[in-house]
């Protein structure tokens, strides 16, 4: 009997402790999300209200005018499309190239398999500033060579290529560790059946790696969409800017109307947040596949 009472007591104290921790973390969570809520709130008010009645004034008007204005005055849609033109091809090419190397490394044991994988994985970790000076001049130089300075520089193609180069390493690594879990027998029977290397890749392996491809796809879409550095270096023409670097310009230009800027920021953030909530499982497994080996 007494042990049960004691047990009950222990459980009660644990319950109280948990309630305390839960409240604390809940409060913390509110603090966490507050800046976002505040930005949304700001985006729904006209700037003139804030100026004349103060920061904490009760709103006279709440509407989506700033959002319409963001589309009209900030050309948010144009920036957003630029982001898409860069992100979508970059993700697809990265996954394609990554899957090729991963396929070779995990299915055909060559002497150079491990060094190759090492080089690709290490490439992903290089600091971007270590390569950007030569890359910049190379883009200009290639542009002059083909007679169009905006061939790579100031162009989607240049951004796509540099993202592909940087992200392929991570994709290769994640995909190869996934492919190693695919039983060898599948490959062996394909080879016995006389499948060519290409068929082996395209018909046998590719359908099997859909889960990590989806996970990486979500993760890389977020990363490339969120990229700021490369867009800053390689694009100077405003009409070609992806949304993150476009936002920076707007940040300078619309300091006098930050309610409008708030709407712009929310619009820029929306795609990745929505993507995350819709495909959360993929996003998390993409990150953890790379860091913990599944």
């Amino acid at each position, binding site marked *: 009997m007494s042990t049960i009472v004691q047990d009950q007591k222990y459980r009660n104290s644990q319950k109280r402790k948990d309630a305390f921790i*839960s409240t604390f973390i*809940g409060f913390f*969570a509110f603090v*966490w*999300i*507050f*800046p*976002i809520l505040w*930005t949304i709130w*700001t985006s729904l008010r006209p700037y003139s209200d*804030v100026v004349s009645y103060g*920061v904490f004034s009760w709103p006279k008007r709440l509407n989506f005018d700033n959002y319409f204005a963001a589309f009209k005055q900030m050309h948010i849609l144009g920036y957003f499309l630029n982001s898409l033109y860069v992100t979508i091809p970059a993700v697809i090419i990265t996954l394609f190239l990554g899957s*090729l*190397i991963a396929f*070779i490394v995990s299915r*055909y*044991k060559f002497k150079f398999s*491990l060094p190759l994988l090492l*080089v*690709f*994985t290490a490439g992903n*970790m*290089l*600091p971007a*500033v*270590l*390569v950007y*000076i*030569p890359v*910049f*001049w190379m883009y200009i130089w290639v542009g002059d060579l083909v007679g169009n300075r905006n061939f790579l520089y100031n162009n989607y193609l240049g951004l796509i*290529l*540099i993202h*592909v180069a940087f992200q*392929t*390493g991570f994709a290769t690594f994640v995909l190869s560790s996934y492919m190693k879990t695919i039983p060898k027998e599948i490959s062996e029977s394909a080879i016995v059946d006389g499948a*060519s*290397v*290409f068929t082996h890749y395209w018909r046998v392996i590719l359908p099997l790696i859909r889960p990590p491809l989806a996970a990486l796809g979500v993760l890389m879409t977020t990363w490339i969409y*969120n*990229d*700021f550095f490369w867009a800053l*270096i390689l694009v100077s023409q405003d009409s070609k800017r992806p949304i*993150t*670097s476009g*936002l*920076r310009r707007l*940040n300078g230009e619309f300091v006098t109307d930050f309610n409008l*800027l*708030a709407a712009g*920021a929310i619009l*820029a*953030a929306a795609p990745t947040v929505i*993507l*995350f909530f819709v495909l959360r499982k993929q996003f*998390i*497994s993409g990150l*953890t596949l790379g860091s*913990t*080996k599944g």
Partner: protein
Amino acid sequence: MNTTAVDKKVRSRRSLSRNDRFTLSAFVGFPTFVQLIFLWIPALATILLSFTYWNGIRISDIKWAGFANYKNIFLNDTLFYEALKNNLIWLLWFSFLATPLGILLAYQIDRKIKGHKIYESIYYIPVVLSLAVIGIIWNFMFQPGGFIQGLMGRDIGNAVSIWGNYKINTYVIMAVASWRHIGYIMLLYLSGLKSVDPSLKEASAIDGATEWQTFRKVILPAMKPVNIIIVVITLIESLRAFDLVFIIYGSSTSWPLLNILVYQNFAGQGISMKGAALAVILLVLCIGPIIGYLRTVFKEDS
């Protein structure tokens, strides 16, 4: 390598048709070409250029400088030391505050406290935001007309500068940076915790271990690979910091970071290759964490 293994290898290679060998070479060759052209050759070029003077226009203008750029940085550049200091502050703050907090949160949420699902989502949101957006969102807190200004009773007209206040701006920047980092660490750690065998935790609880003991003696050792990854990510993120501070301050030198200095030395003054030398210094600082990462993730392969 014993002979049968070699034999096997030779046979397996011979069994490939010419077509197949072509496919294989293309499969390896094309991605490798992209990697070399856009990553490794430029990286090597930067290392070489860091020993030269060059304005970036004609190849023939490149002049050998020896260690002059490095000497210049180490002897004359006060901004470099300031940047180094700020990167170090970033590193210490992340290591001793942000990362442990992320781990603690992950641990508590893993225990499925009330509301853990909602909390988890909330803490993850900053992780998917770009640092550009994060900079702007936090501007709405601190800039004139922002929330914090309002709390201090200041309207747009009589606002005080928070980003420009050198007594507090370091803490403010670190707090904003942590906003994202804590969620990131939590995400990684939480998925690691989920893979720890629950019976381990139960067993230690039955043995009368306190929560802290369970965490230190049971969970932490079981999470070794994740721990290393988290240390590496903390190091790399601290060294690579750029976007957030750049968005807040523009390219000014208010709160220099190594990455911002590299950027400025290229975008601003093209005459020397000091930027390249700074980039190489950054690489040297990053090499430890990079090797640590590679060793961890490749351990199972070798």
